[in-house]
């Protein structure tokens, strides 16, 4: 079982308490009726699905109930870091520093 650090509970909790909730940092267009069908398709359906570092939303659904974001390596399935919803996407330097810390 994976242990996932919840930034609200401030500790690692068993994976089974969490639920994956799609790609993170996708901003809903401020004037959604003004955008083209192609732009809407991009916003609504198209996901980056990278091999490697991915930014994802997770929810501590059977815990504090909160949504938060996680940086996960889709190859190793290791969660590199988690942070509160609304916080900016961590920079490459922050991710690299964290990787070093974890010795991954």
């Amino acid at each position, binding site marked *: *079982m994976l242990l996932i650090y919840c930034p*609200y*509970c*401030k*500790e690692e*909790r*068993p994976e*089974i*308490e969490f639920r994956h909730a799609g790609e993170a940092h996708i901003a809903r267009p401020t004037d959604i009726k003004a955008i083209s069908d192609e732009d809407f398709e991009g916003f609504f359906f198209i996901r980056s699905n990278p091999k490697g570092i991915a930014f994802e939303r997770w929810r501590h659904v*059977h*815990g*504090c*109930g*909160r949504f938060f974001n996680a940086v996960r390596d889709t190859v190793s399935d290791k969660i590199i870091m988690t942070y509160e919803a609304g916080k900016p996407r961590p920079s490459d330097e922050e991710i690299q520093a964290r990787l070093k810390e974890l010795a991954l």
Partner: protein
Amino acid sequence: MADIQAASPQYPLDGMVAGSALVQITPAAPASRLALRARPDAIAPLSKALAVKLPQEPKTSAQGTAAKTKGRRALWLGPDEWLVIDESGADLMAACQGAGGTFSAVDVSNRNTAIIVSGPAAEAVISAGCPQDLSLKAFAVGACARTLLGKTEVVLLREEADVFRVECWRSFSAYAFAFLAEALRDPMV
């Protein structure tokens, strides 16, 4: 005109009992319960109105501060969410009426029911279905968390070193009780 009718509470675990030489599993007494969601500005007014300090540390609970509310508990469930439990028959909705700040309070007295698991094997029995580390070091007396027990969501509160309160939704309670009763037959317990 239609008459206003109040549904009468149900106690689906009434009379149920399970146990061994090492653990007792019994339904908890009926309680008043509040599901509280509050903005920071409402935490102090609500703590005063309910005479129990709403804890702000994850995984912690607090007991009533006044003589009359000693048995009342506020459980941290999330950064703006608490479960308040009182077994003295108090009207919690009335108590927080008019408290300042922005908050919502929902009476869930009869949505939940609770099971008390006590005895030297209490921790082992709950661990049969709960993925959290329940050792005293990780889950101290007074610790609480919303988590899982088998296939159901529960709120777990460690009232004493070997006494746990398992709060679960009423409709799942028969399953939760049966799960715990089955767990105590495990040779590891």
